[in-house]
């Protein structure tokens, strides 16, 4: 790709490609599959926001490093956490039920989904103080750490690669495949 020769067109293409796909119902792909879109964003909004902005988490950061983040209102945090767990359940169900997804799914796909949802399930157990609080807190922390450590070695690397891959295809269309002709791709 002639990235350097057409830097501006490339950056424009990359940003458009990321923007329309990060926006709920922003891309035609989201609009044509609304149920998947609800599950996808239901899962990802919480998965990104809760680890960073839950009051219980920001407090730890404040204590350990002295950095203070704005924290989420408790009701919002509850909705988001439940969003993650419920969406994960239906995403797993979707894998099982839809033939076009089942054919692509293996144990690894369920493992990744479980790995991602587990800290949220245990987090909610702690939140409502169900069972032995300190035991579940320990498990919650452990599962959270496993999740974080596994990011670079598993498909969870998409946390970063999503942006890189979207940017790359955006630049491909932005530079080579028509981005310099007219208004650009309508994602």
């Amino acid at each position, binding site marked *: 790709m002639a990235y350097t020769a*057409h830097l501006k067109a490339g950056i424009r293409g990359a940003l458009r490609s990321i923007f329309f796909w990060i926006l709920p119902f922003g891309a*035609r792909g989201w609009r044509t599959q609304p149920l998947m879109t609800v599950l996808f964003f239901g899962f990802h909004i919480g998965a990104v926001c809760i680890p960073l902005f839950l009051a219980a988490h920001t407090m730890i950061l404040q204590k350990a490093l002295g950095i203070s983040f704005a924290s989420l209102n408790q009701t919002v945090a509850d909705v988001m956490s439940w969003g993650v767990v419920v969406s994960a359940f239906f995403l797993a169900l979707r894998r099982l039920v839809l*033939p076009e997804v089942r054919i692509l799914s293996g144990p690894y796909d369920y493992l990744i989904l479980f790995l991602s949802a587990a800290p949220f399930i245990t987090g909610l157990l702690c939140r409502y103080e169900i069972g032995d609080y300190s035991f579940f807190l320990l498990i919650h922390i452990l599962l959270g750490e496993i999740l974080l450590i596994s990011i670079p070695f598993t498909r969870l690397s*998409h946390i970063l690669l999503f942006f890189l*891959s979207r940017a790359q295809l955006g630049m491909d269309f932005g530079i080579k495949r028509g981005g*310099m002709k007219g208004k650009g791709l*309508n994602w």
Partner: protein
Amino acid sequence: MPEGTLCNRQPIQTDEALKTLLSDTGGRQYYQEMQSLPVDTPLLWETIQKTCRSRIRTWLSMCARCGMCADSCFLYRINDRDPKQVPAYKIQSTLGEILRRKGRVDNAFMQMAMETAWAKCTCCNRCGLYCPHGIDMGVMFGYLRGLLYQQGFVPWELKIGAGMHRVYHAQMDVTDADFTETFAWMVEENEEDYPGLAVPVDKVGADIMYTVNAREVKHYPEDLAEAAILFHLAGENWTVPSRGWEQTSLAMFAGDWEACKIQVESVYDAMERLKPKRMVGTECGHAHRATVVEGPYWAGRKDGLPPVESIHYVEWLAEALRTGKLKINPEKRIKEPVTLQDSCNYVRNHGLKEITREIMSYIVEPGYFIDMSPNREHNYCCGGGGGFNGIGLYRKQRNKALITKRDQILSTGAKLVIAPCHNCWDAIRDLEEEYRIGIRWSFLKPLILKMVEIPEHLKPEE
């Protein structure tokens, strides 16, 4: 097991080899030999290590297996939503598997991969628009075709097609002399009606260098005449090169990367030699993709652009109508329901979505143009792209694939389909022959010619 005499890993390099392969009607012996063609697994793995860049490797490993690409694929939809037609499955079970096995695959696997690459994907790139991760499986199938071609697992017609480019620098056995003679003959046929009509060959420094599709020369010479007449009426200072006039690339469909480069360089050489201000290509989709979009990269051009500005016929036509170089007689505009086929290769893959609609606004009486749904960059492949039209072995699958376009056309209610792309034009003709839905189909040139006003000074003397 040795390689076959017809089906082997060697590309076609000579006219004699071409004729021998052509004489094997329908590729009967060719496909028979393919049954026992060994796979050179060390070569396959070595090629992958040299040519499979991080983009494709990342795409294959990061695929979330979400299945959102399924519905984007017209072949999945038309084949009763067969899960084996899901784009992610198709690429993972072929290219993905070759990578996972480090190239250690057998003959049966390669034949399965061949069918997947040419009969289950037209490289329309629509799935790339529907993957949340931005994974373009059409691009990967293009790459897989290259690996298969190198191993000799390529449909008979495309092995011939790629060979044609190597021997004739054209997709058919049309020589440079055939081209200029046919063009001159076509001009002669029409010069009584259009005094002063000429085809300037190899004129240096013209405003436009025109390139064509070899089958216009061989089967549809009136297309050349129409192009000449419209340039003439528009008062263009144009020329054709005596060498490097072929814009198409069956080599691209075949995955013959070397022949792709040879072919496109012959056109670029003509540009360097004749130094035109611009190149205009004919009404063909894949020719534009090959020469204007992909070609610069095959030829290793740093700026990703051809040596001179290169545009599609629809861009030239829209400009000629917009600036008044060509004037349409409003009385003669199309006054029946009409629809337009968006070619994947220059609409989805080169952004020319509004320009064809601008042309419609000039040539169709308001109210008669009906868009297909979906359209523009989201349009479906005609059903015959990527070489699918030309492969006898997969004719049945191709005919089924046409149903998507048939139903899209039917729901517009249009009786006339404008298809400014050779592949789409063929597919739409074939779907009419196969399914008889009572439509007509046309390129733009003959339609324009029927409604264009002839300037006084260019009219024949009574």
